[in-house]
């Protein structure tokens, strides 16, 4: 099995290339088969691998070929497989397969069917390379690869400029983080002489003491990369806009897999972060602030996908919090459960959008409970898991995170309380969504319900979102053991009860309407705050003023090539000289003669001043 591990990313890659080259000539159904089956085979192989791994717990390292070798710099196209990789691969191929299947129906009428699956397959391949890479450079390859695929898929409907804008924003904002990450790679290589992750972590702990500056800088640079990819503050602005892409893409890339790459990166290089506790604190604070910021924003959104996008940002904030407090496996666990329930929610919203003629505004929906039962139930389960209601998958993972955050000395209780506030908000906005969309009066009529290709993935994901919490992820050997003692029981009870409180609030505000928030929302303060939240705390506006516009202005200012001014000045000087000298060219012989004589006089007097000998014989 270990011999063919490279087949797993290769399959979707081959699928993608085939679709790119021959997609035009294939029948629609064949395109669908090809696109789904390539990921399906990968999923199957991953499952086989997982079974094998469960039996022998064997860590695999495979060198396919040496990518390049310059002196001691010799990164390979090589894969590393352990429990963490397995979790990620399972999520990618499993959820990926379901979403591919869902897409065959969702994209059925799109003229660029083949292009869609080619991109999607390419994404899965890149993502697999990202998580399977055993060195940071190959990881970076996957990292950028998913970035480009995300760009392509967000801008999939290229004929609307807005989509193109969103796609470029997604790429460029993440590229900022990526560049910082690349610098981190350079720093790590120049100090440790390798980019191989396992070797790197081993060497780092020998070379550096805990709390030294260089590992701190390196970690912070890696965090920049992670922050960009995972849409955390301050580089989160691309994700809500990225919802311009087809909804299954949002489910796969912008909820389940790519955006969690940052979490994976930090978890993968935890050995470095343990050397830089300050960096971990930064990660925790970024996580918690982001999760709160995004949760408040999600409260005010009206676009169903934007709500989900902000909730994704918020949930990844929890994962960052987990990583920051050293709860590695809890973070990864939440990554997995989040992949299940968020993919479920996105696919559910996709089903709604698909059946409601591309309607995105939740206030134009309503009463869909009876008309789209499958979707309703998937939304119910997904939202329950998102809000971390007891016994759902989200409950287990989020609970773990909060409990471990609480145990952190000094900052712990503060982080815990912020996390709780976030959980409360999560429950409110997720059930706001459910109540507004599925209950109340119907505003639009769906023209169809989901077919089996949509229904089956939804059902499977429902199941996973419900029971995912009972899985144990095989990462015990990957991470150092953290957290020993159990916190006081009241902490646990509070953690459990907060989401329920949120649900109750949402019920009274949005469904029962017992609590009237009208006066609050119409007051000037409330409206101002609401607008601020609606615009995502105005961060987009701020960036636009701070970076985007000045850059445009700079480019506009420079576009006529200021350097040319120097060369044009030389040209003009020459022309001036020419004009001046050509005036002396009168055409009158005597004038020339007189000037010649004058010149002669000057020359002779100069020469005789040069001293004896010049004119002596």
């Amino acid at each position, binding site marked *: 099995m270990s011999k063919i591990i490279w087949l797993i990313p290769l399959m979707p890659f081959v699928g993608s290339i085939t679709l*790119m080259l021959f997609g035009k000539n294939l029948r629609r159904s064949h395109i669908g088969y090809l696109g789904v089956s390539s990921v399906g085979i990968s999923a199957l192989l991953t499952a086989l691998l997982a079974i094998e791994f469960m039996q022998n717990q064997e860590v695999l390292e495979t060198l396919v*070929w*040496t*990518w*390049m*070798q*310059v*002196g001691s*710099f010799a990164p390979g*196209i090589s894969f590393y497989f352990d429990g963490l990789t397995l979790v990620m691969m399972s999520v990618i191929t499993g959820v990926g397969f379901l979403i591919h299947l869902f897409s065959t129906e969702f994209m059925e009428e799109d003229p660029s069917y083949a292009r869609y699956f080619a991109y999607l397959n390419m994404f899965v391949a890149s993502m697999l390379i990202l998580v399977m890479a055993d060195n940071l*450079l190959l990881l*970076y*390859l996957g*990292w*950028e*690869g998913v970035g*480009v695929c995300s*760009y*392509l898929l967000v*801008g999939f409907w*290229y*004929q*609307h*400029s807005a989509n*193109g*804008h969103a*796609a*470029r924003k997604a*790429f*460029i904002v993440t*590229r*900022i983080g*990526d*560049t910082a990450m*690349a*610098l981190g790679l*350079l*720093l790590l*290589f*120049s100090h440790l002489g390798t980019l191989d992750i396992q070797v790197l972590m081993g060497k780092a702990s020998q070379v550096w003491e805990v709390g030294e500056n260089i590992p701190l800088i390196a970690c912070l640079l890696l965090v920049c990369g992670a922050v960009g990819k995972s849409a955390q503050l301050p580089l989160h602005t691309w994700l809500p806009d990225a919802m311009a892409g087809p909804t299954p893409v949002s489910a796969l890339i912008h909820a389940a897999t790519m955006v969690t790459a940052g979490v994976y990166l930090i978890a993968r290089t935890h050995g470095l972060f343990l050397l830089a506790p300050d960096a971990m604190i930064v990660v925790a604070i970024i996580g918690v602030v982001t999760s709160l910021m995004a949760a408040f924003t999600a409260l005010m959104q009206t676009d169903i996908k934007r709500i989900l996008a902000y909730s994704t940002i918020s949930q990844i904030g929890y994962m960052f919090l987990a990583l920051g407090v050293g709860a590695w496996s809890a973070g990864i666990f939440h990554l997995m459960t989040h992949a299940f329930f968020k993919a479920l929610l996105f696919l559910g919203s996709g089903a709604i959008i698909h059946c409601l003629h591309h309607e995105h505004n939740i206030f134009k929906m309503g009463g869909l409970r009876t008309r789209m039962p499958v979707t309703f139930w998937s939304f119910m389960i997904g939202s329950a898991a998102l809000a971390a209601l007891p016994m759902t998958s989200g409950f287990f993972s989020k609970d773990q995170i909060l409990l471990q955050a609480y145990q952190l000395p000094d900052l712990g209780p503060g982080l815990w309380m912020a996390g709780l506030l976030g959980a409360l908000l999560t429950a409110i906005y997720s059930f706001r969504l459910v109540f507004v969309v599925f209950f109340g009066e119907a505003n639009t009529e769906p023209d169809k319900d989901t077919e089996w290709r949509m229904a089956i993935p939804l059902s499977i994901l429902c199941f996973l979102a419900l029971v995912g919490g009972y899985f144990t992820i095989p990462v015990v050997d990957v991470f150092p053991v953290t957290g020993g003692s159990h916190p006081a029981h009241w902490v646990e009870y509070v953690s459990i009860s907060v989401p329920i409180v949120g649900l109750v609030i949402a019920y009274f505000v949005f469904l029962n309407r017992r609590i009237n928030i009208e006066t609050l929302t119409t007051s000037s303060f409330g409206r101002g705050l609401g607008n601020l939240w609606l615009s995502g705390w105005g961060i987009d506006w701020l960036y636009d003023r701070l970076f985007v516009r000045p*850059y445009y202005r*700079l*480019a*506009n200012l*420079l*576009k006529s*090539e200021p*350097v*040319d001014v*120097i*060369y044009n000045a030389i040209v003009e000087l020459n022309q001036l000289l020419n004009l001046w000298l050509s005036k002396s060219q009168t055409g009158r012989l005597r004038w020339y003669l007189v000037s010649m004589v004058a010149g002669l006089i000057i020359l002779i007097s100069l020469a005789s001043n040069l001293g004896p000998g010049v004119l002596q014989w």
Partner: protein
Amino acid sequence: MVMINLILILLVGGLLAMLSERLDENMPRKVAMAAVLFDLIYLISSMLSLPEIAQLQAPITNDPSTWLMHFKANWIPAFGISIEFAMDGISLLMVLLTLILGAVAISASWTDIVKRKGFFEANLLWSLAGVLGVFLALDLLLFFLFWEVMLIPMYFMIAIWGHENRGYAAMKFFIFTQASGLLMLVSILVLSAINQETTGVWTFSYFDLLNTNISEQASYWIMLGFFIAFVVKLPGFPFHTWLPDAHTQAPTAGSVILAGVLLKTGAYGLIRFAVPLFPQAALDFSYPAMLLGAAGVVYGAVLAFGQADFKRLIAYSSVSHMGFVLLGIYAWNELALQGAVMQMVAHGFSTAALFMIAGSIQERLHTRDMSQMSGLWHQMPRMGAVAMFFVVASLGLPGLGNFVAEFLILLGLFQVNVWITVIAATGLITGAAYSLLLMQKSFQGEINKKWAESKLSDFGQREMMTMAVMIIALIFLGIYPQPVLNIAEPVLHSLLDLTALALPSIAEAKL
């Protein structure tokens, strides 16, 4: 002899192409293509027959017998001028690149030249011959001769077959390169004269001049002469302003050759002459040179972002990319140099392809203004897909050649100067900005009504074949660059040894 034949085939091929126009109007392009392909096959076959190619022993820079090939014959013995050619790994790579891109250029101009086709192909081939000469000549005066030989046909190509503002562009190109070339000539003469003063023998041979004993100050000035000549060609900031005009106005084949090959002669000159001949001076100058490189990276990227002209945007992206080469060369360690060589090759392919796409668009739309494009993907999906590939290549997507190059350069540079690395790295971000803007404005977005009715033909077989060559090359360079690195490695090692020998302080520091 092989090297002379390589050049002669192109020169004669050009002549034949010009004459063949009398037989048939479409004959020249076929003759030219045949000549370039024949040259390529000839090169490869003679390379395969070389015993050294198998192990590629490290050439000792000042011992020509260790090079892959060496040829020397008297030319003007009174002044020690000889016809001396030699080839090592870097020359080989550059010659290969030149010939492949030469074929690409001929293919690119297959249909868009309508007047004086014979003379056009002749100029193309002569320019290529000049470039080959530059990459192979190791007598400094011969080198200068070829430097001019490649310049003049290119001037004609821009001036005769260029676009609306061709006269200005051609003249600007000519004056910049000519003035800087003369500066180099002066430097060559002074260097040789100094050598003659100390040894009593006139010589222009690279191998002899390597051992010249020059005072520090003199070597600094001479080095600057070489540096400016090469940096103008590269082009490095702030000597780059000829490039946007020349690239924009040149016919497609001209742009392809200009961007793909001619710019590389500058980088080649820096690696071959400017640094090894004056190691100490180059070291003293490395900081300003790197600053210029970083400035080029950033400046080119910002200006590219501001352009509305398709070709001009690509031209500025070249400025940005070649800034990386300058950085790589003056970082002068193995990683960075490998990156610079890699960048020369990869940039050759990616930019040549983009210029070819630009040419195809102009041929169909008769405009290069991107505000008049938009949504072209819809009508020309193949061209759009190909363009997307090269755009992401040029923004440095890992897995394609440019990334390997840029990463190696940054990695090498990081050991030398962290802050310049940081500045250069921002080029990755701004690079993404202008590349994607290019894509957005031309191929994506709403379908422009202007072209909705007119039938725009997508890439045909010939074009797709040409593109396939470059796509495969870039992927190959991106995921398995080792063959290229292996060819360049011994040369770079020997160059590094040479400079380390001249600079004991560096050698000690490295130990």
